[in-house]
């Protein structure tokens, strides 16, 4: 029997498969298809201090093997989450990670304080390409990544995961700044900034003009970034970007991920994360690998 359990900086999960922020709501919808306790962890929709309505539609464009989205962090706010969504998630045996986004460092800290120890971890979203203020502005300069990580860490009662943007020149530099700032773990990648134009109307498909690219199309970029970051830091890594099958998950783990997150693939197949967890287990057993950690970063260069 291979051991599927992982410990990401103190967040213990029965398997390394999580669902990615923004693609999984607060778990309720997919919970109608299967028992959410089958997942290792759920990262909830990006939360802000106050409720947000998000961007004008259309908010999605399909591109070759990918999608562009410009939701713009529509969410009911952190207080609503604590009162109305978290109790539902807590009925399941699954790690719950709150993804948070703010316009100022103070907002990030206020949310972290409100969340306290009610969740198993906090994912600092400093990489959302779909909001004008904040978001990615914090995530693309090493100094600001260091600062915000340090400030949030100082008031964070649970493991702090910093989610990295791929829209940077050197992701290693950003990853190191987060680690130095006190991040307990890193997650990557958020979406890649992209654009699609309807040639008949000559207008952008998204009303926000640009949006974040996700899905299989981004996978090679994500694998490369996970590999580069794994070389640079010592803290655990949650890899994501286009993961659709268990083979994709193995690829991320070989590149250096400790756990994986499934996002866009849920839209095509609601059972994707469960099937990926099952496939990973079968793979470990077939290859007599004792634990997931045994293949972490074992790509042969």
């Amino acid at each position: 029997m291979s051991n599927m359990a992982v410990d990401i900086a103190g967040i213990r999960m029965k398997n390394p498969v999580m669902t990615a922020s923004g693609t999984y709501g607060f778990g309720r919808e997919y919970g109608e298809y299967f028992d959410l306790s089958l997942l290792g962890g759920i990262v909830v929709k990006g939360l802000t201090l106050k409720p947000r309505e998000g961007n004008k539609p259309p908010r999605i464009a399909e591109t070759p093997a990918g999608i562009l989205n410009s939701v713009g962090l529509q969410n009911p706010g952190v207080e609503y989450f604590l009162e109305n969504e978290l109790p539902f998630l807590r009925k399941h045996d699954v790690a719950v990670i709150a993804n948070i986004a703010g316009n100022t460092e103070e907002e990030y800290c206020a949310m972290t304080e409100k969340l306290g120890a009610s969740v198993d971890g906090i994912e600092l979203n400093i990489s959302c390409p779909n909001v004008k203020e904040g978001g990615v502005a914090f995530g693309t300069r090493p100094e600001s990544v260091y600062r915000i990580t340090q400030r949030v860490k100082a008031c964070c009662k649970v493991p702090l995961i910093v989610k990295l943007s791929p829209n940077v020149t050197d992701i290693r530099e950003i990853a190191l700044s987060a680690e130095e700032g006190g991040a307990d773990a890193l997650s990557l990648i958020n979406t890649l900034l992209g654009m699609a134009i309807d040639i008949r109307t000559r207008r952008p498909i998204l009303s926000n003009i640009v949006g974040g690219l996700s899905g299989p199309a981004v996978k090679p970029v994500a694998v490369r970034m996970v590999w580069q970051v794994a070389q640079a830091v010592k803290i655990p890594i949650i890899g994501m970007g286009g993961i659709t099958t268990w083979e994709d998950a193995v690829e991320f783990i070989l590149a250096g991920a400790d756990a994986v997150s499934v996002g866009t693939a849920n839209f095509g197949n609601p059972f994707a994360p469960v099937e990926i967890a099952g496939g990973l287990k079968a793979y470990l057993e077939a290859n007599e690998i004792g634990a997931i950690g045994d293949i972490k970063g074992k790509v042969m260069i």
Partner: protein
Amino acid sequence: MVYKDCEIISNKEIAQGIYELCFVSAQIAEAAEPGQFVHVKIGKGLDPLLRRPISICKADAGQGVISLVYQVVGRGTKVLTEYGPGEVLDVMGPLGKGFPVIEGKCAVIGGGIGNAPLLELASRLRSCDAYLGFRSQGYKVEEFNACCSQVQLASDDGTTGAKGFVTALFDSLKQYDAVYTCGPKPMMRRVKEMCKRDGVKCYISVEERMGCGVGACLVCACKTQAADGSLHYSKACKDGPVFDAEEVMLDE
């Protein structure tokens, strides 16, 4: 809610560029409410990646058969025409909030491919008139005839019924207890205005681009107004696709 491969019985062109696809699913046929949709994965690979939302046109609970009527507009619907009897289609559904079935005298007002989602509804309403607008050739008209008290037709080029907009077929909607509409936005806007003017309850089925189709990703935003006048983005897939006309804005 079902998520599985369903066997296709038929997939035929019923008007120019418009196809009817029937597949077997006792569970969906049993559960379906008029106005709900199914989310269909077209092709096996990564492209097209997203499912396509298609309304349930007819749900035959007795036979366990669902009928979809779709218009070929892009790559997904083009590939869908290539499916044949005996092949399977990967379907999730029934999804979303459908039309409330109201006692009393009702009208369905459809335009283009928007007529299709109104057929199951018309067949469940005790008293229903249908106003159907087409681009050119009509489809499913006999089936509306079979379940409606009165069917009036219009088309852009005069091939089917009167030449012109479907909304030109009536001056007033006062005689109805409820009106249901699905079709192009300008048409639905006009129907909404007329219902408001005539004090008639109105339900609208909207179309927005979708991702998950179940309410998890928030890409299918549709602007709605709450009772207190505040504006919000609702999920077309979960809170809709059918909304009370008072609630849905139709302005973007």
